[in-house]
């Protein structure tokens, strides 16, 4: 059996890679992709904790169901995020978030 901390370590690494992408990449699409990585790192954690938790007599479903909801939110986030990126590009000819700063005081 693979110990639980190994799953958590991989998830931690994936999450950190995602954080690096969000902080360092310039292109908004790349930032969105890094956010997807972070969401999936969280999903690994949720499913791993769900699988390794002692259930006793009745079956636990919280981790399983929660992961399904995270997937739904990820899909919604990608759809709306990409729509915003395309609109910003259409108006400003740029996909770099720093350049879309009209509202900055």
């Amino acid at each position: 059996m693979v110990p639980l901390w190994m799953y958590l370590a991989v998830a931690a690494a994936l999450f950190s890679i995602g954080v690096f992408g969000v902080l360092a990449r310039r292109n908004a699409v790349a930032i969105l992709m890094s956010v997807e990585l972070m969401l999936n790192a969280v999903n690994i954690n949720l499913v791993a904790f769900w699988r390794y938790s002692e259930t006793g007599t009745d079956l636990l479903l919280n981790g399983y169901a929660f992961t399904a909801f995270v997937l739904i939110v990820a899909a919604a986030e990608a759809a709306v995020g990409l729509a915003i990126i395309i609109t910003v590009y259409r108006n400003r000819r740029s996909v770099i978030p720093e350049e879309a700063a009209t509202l900055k005081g």
Partner: protein
Amino acid sequence: MELNAISIGFVVFSIFTLGGGFGVVTTRNLFQGTIWLMVSLFGVAGYFILLSAPFLAAVQILVYIGAIAILIIFAVMLTRSVARIKERYIRILPSFIASLALFLILLLGVTIPIFGAHSPESIPEYVASTRNLGTALVDENGFVVPFLLASVLLTAAMIGAIFIARDENA
């Protein structure tokens, strides 16, 4: 960790997941970045199978490779992201240090039991099946409210995305 099908699978899927992740944040070409993202998420789907959640694995592949990958590729093409951006990074060094520090802290957190938690010695033999999940999602004592909210969220996201991305001149 003894050598068996699950541990070999774990190593293989780890390579997929982390290698794909590195590809996403380092590649210059965003089309290839999308493919790397899919490699990474395919590895995550493999984890779900190892953790006996086959339904999530199938949904992961269906949602990400079947839908989000296509969506991202269309966005990359429509914004001409492949050719136009010359510099990949801003503030690369602070970001790198920050994410490395985060990783080390998280690693310490999951390996050293400072929070009093113990790593379980064995995994439960019986786990919930897809049928259990399906029942729980529509059970009033289960997840029926989040389930309905999620469907409302998806509808709202769909309408919102269409409304935002719509070109008024076309």
